[in-house]
């Protein structure tokens, strides 16, 4: 028996997020940032830069990356990894788009 189950939760519509933008989803103490790219792909990761916990949801989204508003670290939305010479990673969450509804998977 696996006690940790993954649940897909509907969190809203694609149109709730501006293209090249992000919105936040609150999950208990954790804030999850949900990103929409210019070509309508959707990604989710913890709203915390690995550098100094900057709110990534407030950054500029470009291609498949976001630039943190505090000190300009660039985080890859697909892997959560810091780009360039910086090292660090942000926790990512599985996300899927069915029609226009966005689901994210959270373990309980």
């Amino acid at each position, binding site marked *: 028996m696996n006690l940790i189950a993954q*649940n897909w*939760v509907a*969190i*809203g519509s694609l149109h*709730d*997020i*501006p*293209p*090249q*933008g992000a*919105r*936040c*989803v*609150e*999950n*208990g103490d954790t*804030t999850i940032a*949900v990103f929409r790219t*210019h*070509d309508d792909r959707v990604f989710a990761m913890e709203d915390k830069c690995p550098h*100094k*916990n*900057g*709110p990534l949801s*407030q*950054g*500029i*989204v*470009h*291609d498949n*990356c976001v*630039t943190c*508003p*505090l000190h*300009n670290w*660039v985080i890859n939305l697909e892997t959560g990894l810091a780009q*360039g*010479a910086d090292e*660090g990673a942000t926790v990512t969450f599985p996300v899927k788009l069915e029609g226009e509804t966005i689901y994210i998977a*959270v373990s*309980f």
Partner: protein
Amino acid sequence: MSEKLVIIGNGMAPGRMLEELFEKAPGLYDVTIFNAEPRVNYDRIMLSPVLSGEKAYDDIIIHDDAWYGAHNVTLHKGAKVTQIDRHAKTVTSANGITVAYDKLVIATGSLPFIIPVPGHQLPGVLAYRDLDDVEKMLDISKGKGRAIVIGAGLLGLEAAYGLKRQGMEVTVIHLMPTIMERQLDPAAAYLLEKALTERGIEIITKANTKQILGTDKVEGIELEDGRTIEGDMVVMAVGIRPASALAKDAGIAVNRGIVVDDGMQTSDASVFALGECAEHRGQCYGLVAPLYESARVLADRLIGGSAEYHGSVVNTKLKVTGINLFSAGDFAEGPDREEIVLRDASSGIYKRLILKENKIIGAVLYGETGDGSWFFDLMKRGTDISQMRDTLIFGQSYQGGAPLDPMAAVAALPDDAEICGCNGVCKSKIVTTITSKGLTSLDEVRAHTKASASCGSCTGLVEQLMGLTLGDAYNPSAVTPMCTCTELGHDDVRRLIKAKSLKTIPAVMQELEWKTSCGCAKCRPALNYYLVCDWPDEYADDYQSRFINERVHANIQKDGTYSVVPRMWGGMTSSKELRAIADVVDKFNIPAVKCTGGQRIDMLGIKKEDLPAVWADLGKAGFVSGQAYAKGLRTVKTCVGSDWCRFGTQDSTGLGIRLEKFMWGSWTPAKLKLAVSGCPRNCAEATCKDIGVICVDSGFEIHFAGAAGLDIKGTDVLGLVKTEDEALEHIVALTQMYREQGRYLERIYKWAKRIGHDEIRRQIMEDADKRKAYFDRFVFSQKFAQVDPWSERVSGKDKHEFKPMAIMRKEAAE
């Protein structure tokens, strides 16, 4: 089971030793560090830039907490070790932590020497060794006044320069007849003293301190000859001594420092000493380069190697902006010594080499130090220079007949020649990193090798190495591209946007062949500004290309909350406005309220979701956004002028308010701050602003291109005009010229330097048609720009920005 390695001290030397150790043998040791200071490892060489305000503490951290975590290092901060028990093999700290070791490294550094004159224990007598000292100095320097620095050595002069930059009057007292006598000969010392005096630092040589004056804090000093100097702070920078007491108490052999052999081992085979506390072959070192060399040796020994440290020849550079000074070796005169001297009085250049048996044993360079590392290398190697003696002093480029180009000079350096003294990076390390990681820019080389990443004085050498390694692929003189998405520079992009009538970001990227699909966080905000500026009526602002502050019209803070600054026209306010602000602060539990440098009130720590409600309440009292977040017009600071002041010559407040009401809402390449002073006493500090006005009896003197941030620069005068209307027209025209030509994030003083102040005066002061055209374009653009962003958002615009998209609950998923 890993062996236990305990390190006493957390300075740069053990930090570097651990880096080497973890690279060569990760996991070999279970490491515990005791740090008497309550913090992580930071770059002590860079304390001077922190003191002068050119860098912040965060900029000089070498290892952050995450680094210690990643390497499983236990770091006890604020824990001073008071006892070593060599029989039990344990160390114990003042706060009662006892840890056992297999190998122990003592790296306790050094202690500043405090001259025991009467008054030396008064508050305000400081040393200059660590960040605590710097913080104390900064704290006192806030009150301005005068600082007295005792000791004109390297540290003393850097402290003096830093305190001067902080706005204090500074007097340096030195016992010897010339300053920095251990590193400089009298000729170079004279040039340096002159340069420092020109920077406003008073230097008194041959001065012996008799006592420090004051009853419960420093009030001044008295010299042996009876002179007294008033002051609020005394910095003692007269020397250091190795901190060896702990080792001595434990029965380890101690001379001046803790005695170590060529393997950095003390008289106890399990105990090593490293850094300023160690004495190797009778020498104690206080500079970073030799400490890094010995750190490498110790790391090798700890993993079972047999590396040996053979001592170092050291060189010195002074970190005072704009002064180039290099000194190395021994330069005293002597019967068996010869010297070669080159002087160029008009350019302030002085070079002197000291030779003994056809070898360089000392070098002093002032004014032009590019050949320092070459001379230093010849000296360390003991190269016979008799073949090039006639041209030696001219430097490396003049050797071998025809002048060599600088590239060849760098090519000729051996692989182990040190390029970056601060970080101990040699030529081969830079070259192999460039090749193996495929680096092409200076920033990348800095990120990966740390070369030229500290004081930056070797940047030229690093660039030459890049040229050498990459060949044509590296071209530093080429136009710097906007970012990695394009080859084009800012000016080309601006020109092409106009020439090709490009009116959207995708159009720019397509037509100018952007290399990425949708740009990056560097180019998109720049393009958005250029398009807003060039096509005010047609371009639709792209909020997703704006930095968060301009997207939500508030300033993001380090914890993700925001600060809000309402506009107070010309810095004037009223009881009604203040009451409204007080009510908002209470209603939203705003934790901090502060006056800004631009005469506004800043409310800090507001949650993002509260912003629209805060703005709604402020809006009801008549407030609009102060745009304290904008690359645009920020504030117009004023004095009370002829309305109130007995010296005021014109209505400076009125002109300031008029300018602000005319110009608010306009976007500019970088922030734009104005000030209007009612008389030349200049209470509004107009002469360090982007644009300033000094009112005089005969009219209005317009100033521009000042700076009081990373750089400090007084303004230049644009010209004198007679009426307030003319002042407004000239200032607006100047702003528009800057709007149209400035590169994104380029402040007005940098733009003016690039364009030429005379050219700007010619277009704004002398060419009435041009001025009118600039003015008209600004006025047209304002039609679309003067919309209060706060009231827009209170009425619902961009509401998605301020609310979470969803709030998940556990039961919702089941």
